[in-house]
């Protein structure tokens, strides 16, 4: 079965510092990986995805993610965090093995950027 793991429930970082939100995956076949952000009482917003090609993927709001096949990781990064980046972040893998072809999500990481 396809799965992703987010090992940190909570990440705190000071404003202006770089941030990293970790994600590891387990898939059979090629990985199709996504990051979403959820602000309080809102739906999930798409940030970026890795399908193929360059290992460094750039997305919305200055976020980027690094795909590492040998470490089966897809960590989300931003060079300089903003207080407004505080939100819940989900890593997900698109499961291409079944008929649903749905996203399978990690449990989420709460990011808090401290002023």
């Amino acid at each position: 079965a396809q799965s992703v793991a987010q090992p940190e429930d909570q990440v705190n970082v000071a404003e202006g510092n770089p941030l990293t939100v970790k994600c590891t995956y387990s898939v059979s076949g090629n990985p199709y990986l996504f990051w979403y952000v959820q602000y309080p009482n809102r739906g999930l917003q798409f940030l970026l995805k890795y399908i193929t090609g360059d290992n460094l993927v750039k997305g919305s709001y200055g976020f980027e993610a690094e795909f590492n096949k040998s470490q089966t990781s897809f960590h989300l990064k931003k060079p300089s965090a903003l207080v407004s980046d505080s939100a819940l972040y989900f890593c997900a893998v698109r499961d291409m093995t079944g008929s649903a072809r749905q996203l399978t999500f990690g449990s989420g990481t709460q990011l808090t950027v401290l002023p």
Partner: protein
Amino acid sequence: IAGITQAPTSQILAAGRRMTLRCTQDMRHNAMYWYRQDLGLGLRLIHYSNTAGTTGKGEVPDGYSVSRANTDDFPLTLASAVPSQTSVYFCASSPGQGSGNTIYFGEGSWLTVV
């Protein structure tokens, strides 16, 4: 661009009652999904539809049903609500089932079953 519209935004429902959560998308996406979000469990797929006229079961389908009469609408029905169905429900859609297709989410329906 409206995207995905869900209704109601929130609802308190008595146990045993029937409830339909509505979902409409205006992007002409072929695939649609219903997820529920629960604290500590992330998002789990309830039902899906690959195209109008077809539906399938996800990870947690028991107690729920769906229909897909046309491309735009994908309602989720709780036939007889139970407290364990208290959750936040998200409708989502995707242009297709290709690996590169992004799945987009609605704003959610907060349901409390008492």
